């Protein structure tokens, strides 16, 4: 699935850096990230709260809030640089060929507009549909995301829906125009397992039918296991591991990834008194240590880790599994 050919890349992000101009001075939040998604591929993005996942995705769409700016790098989508595109051209892509599901439904849905009208909006604007057709399509979309009584729910305002229904309305908006790329930021945090399974099936179907590519940001590793082809692990604004999904779970190589996997409570576990968690807290933007950003919390840190920054390098012989960790690099050489 992971075609390495660059021409196959639908989204290709190179060296992207994002900085915040805050009261404490400028701080780098996203630090030279490389990311790509091939056509038809689903990329899972995981990482600790605050590591820069949302800001990375917002920067692709040039939707960053005030005082936060992209300072370096490029982001090619379907052969065009999103960072250099005219505002007008970008508007055509946003919500059309790139569907977006935001993390916070309450702030991204318009509270005084019926959800049906909010789903119809991109259909009218990007696909030039008639009102009537757009309404039909909106009903279909609500049904696809599993909202019961969709005709009636078109007239609901966001506050009249449950948390999970609001999230599904967001997903419906993201999928409305059959996008080439869907970028979804924690789209299923409020969904129960049965509906989550339904959404995952829906995304897989669209991928098979339309060749849609997906970037799925989540902290839910079990969900990623069932959905993604490849997974990127972010830590403190950098990519620390990038691997095909099977390799990541079978052979997690960065100590942070291993810590994440160890923290997952599972149903087959006997209910234990305490859960394992990674000690310490991630460094804040602007306060990152020299060397490896994970060093202060890493159980296997060495001297070199506090001096030099490890690069994202292959750690498997065929090169598809990469990690930014001196210990992982050493293990490959020793093998």
């Amino acid at each position, binding site marked *: 699935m992971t075609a390495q050919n660059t021409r196959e890349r639908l989204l290709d992000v190179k060296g992207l850096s994002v900085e915040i101009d*805050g*009261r404490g001075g400028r701080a780098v939040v996203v630090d030279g990230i490389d990311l790509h998604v091939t056509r038809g591929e689903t990329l899972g993005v*995981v990482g*600790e*709260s*605050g590591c820069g*996942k*949302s800001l990375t995705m917002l920067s692709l769409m040039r939707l960053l*809030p005030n005082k936060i700016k992209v300072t370096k790098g490029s982001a090619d989508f379907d052969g065009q640089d999103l960072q250099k595109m005219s505002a007008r051209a970008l508007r055509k892509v946003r919500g059309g060929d790139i569907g977006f599901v935001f*993390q*916070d439904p*309450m*702030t991204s849905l318009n509270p005084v507009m019926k959800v049906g009208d909010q789903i119809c909006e991109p259909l009218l604007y990007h696909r030039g549909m008639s009102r009537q057709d757009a309404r039909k399509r909106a009903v279909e979309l609500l*049904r696809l995301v*599993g909202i*019961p*009584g969709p005709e*009636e729910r078109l*007239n609901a305002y966001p506050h*009249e829906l*449950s*948390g*999970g*229904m609001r999230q*599904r309305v967001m997903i419906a908006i993201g999928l409305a125009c059959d996008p080439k790329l869907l970028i979804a930021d*924690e789209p299923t945090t*409020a*969904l*129960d*397992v*049965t*509906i*989550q*399974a*339904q959404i995952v099936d829906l995304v897989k179907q669209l991928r098979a039918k339309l060749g849609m590519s997906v970037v799925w940001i989540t902290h839910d*590793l*079990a*969900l*990623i*296991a*069932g959905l993604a082809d490849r997974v990127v692990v972010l830590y403190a604004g950098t990519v620390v591991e990038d691997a095909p*999904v*099977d390799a990541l*779970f079978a052979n997690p190589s960065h100590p942070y990834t291993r810590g*994440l996997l160890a*923290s*997952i*409570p*599972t*149903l087959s*576990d006997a*209910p*234990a008194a*305490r*859960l*394992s*968690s*990674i000690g310490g*807290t991630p460094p*804040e933007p602007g306060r990152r240590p020299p060397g490896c950003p994970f060093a202060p919390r890493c159980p296997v840190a060495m001297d070199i880790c506090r001096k030099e920054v490890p690069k994202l390098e292959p750690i498997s012989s065929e090169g598809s599994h990469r990690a930014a960790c001196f210990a992982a690099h050493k293990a490959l050489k020793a093998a």
Partner: protein
Amino acid sequence: MNVEPLLKVENLVKHFHVRLGAFGERTATVHALDDVSLDIQHGETLSLVGESGCGKSTTGFTILNLHRASGGRVIYKGQDLTLLDDKHMRPFRRDLQIVFQDPYSTLNPRMTVGEAIGEPMLFHKLAAKTELNDKIAALLQDVGLPSRFASRYPHELSGGQRQRVVIARALACQPKFIVCDEAISALDVSIQAQIINLLLDLQEKYGLTYLFIAHDLAVVRHISTRVGVMYLGRLAELAPRDALFEAPLHPYTKALLSAVPEADPVRERNRKRQILEGDVPSPLNPPTGCRFHTRCPIAADICAKVVPEWKAARPGHLVACHAVNSSSA
């Protein structure tokens, strides 16, 4: 159980009236909550699970009198909370806290994190002005945030950081009872583990009681004393944790447990889920009899006609299903 429960919920009902049609020309009733009864014991964690839209948040809101009940009672300290207006509710507010599903709706965008956490402490006179900053810093630390965050505004935080501020704010009141509505769902696993450990520690230290609403069944299994399963506005089953996970009785609970994903890509690709047939019915027009009968694999004729009684199948294990016999013991 012969000890008085902390909260007694009796036949609680919540209906919403909504407008339908393109011009709002028709009205209809959303049966969000119907005839829900449960006791919440001192110091326990009672979890509520169930499909999105089944009424979990509404249960939490209505118990705390944030939604006016359409029927039934909620007894706390001998008082029926559903009868109280805002003013008379005030003395109870400090004891009874909620962590909302949408952190944005709880935090005032013009208040810094420190002000948001400090405000309830000053209001309830839980801290003197001089020690306020230390207490705020300690609470931030408890939820895994640096004390510097006190001077930030909500929009300057990531989703998970905001959620933790809301948790810190609820803890600031030193409450007795907290409704945690998907309180940790937006957090990554490592911080989730940290917050769960914190909630368990506080429970042990102060005897806190939680109503824990979540869809992550592994977390629910880990944290709960008892678990209630809801379906379309009604309770389907309520049992001690191990009984519910190891010997579920209600067909809906069984289907729900079979859908839990695992962090193993190979197993996930090959697994067969017991996907429930049929659409989720709308709470605008809930099915007659047992509300699950349209999707239940073992539904019988009676199920469409008669609402199954809420009864004990075994001591402490309550269920609403015609196919389950009540305990003669």
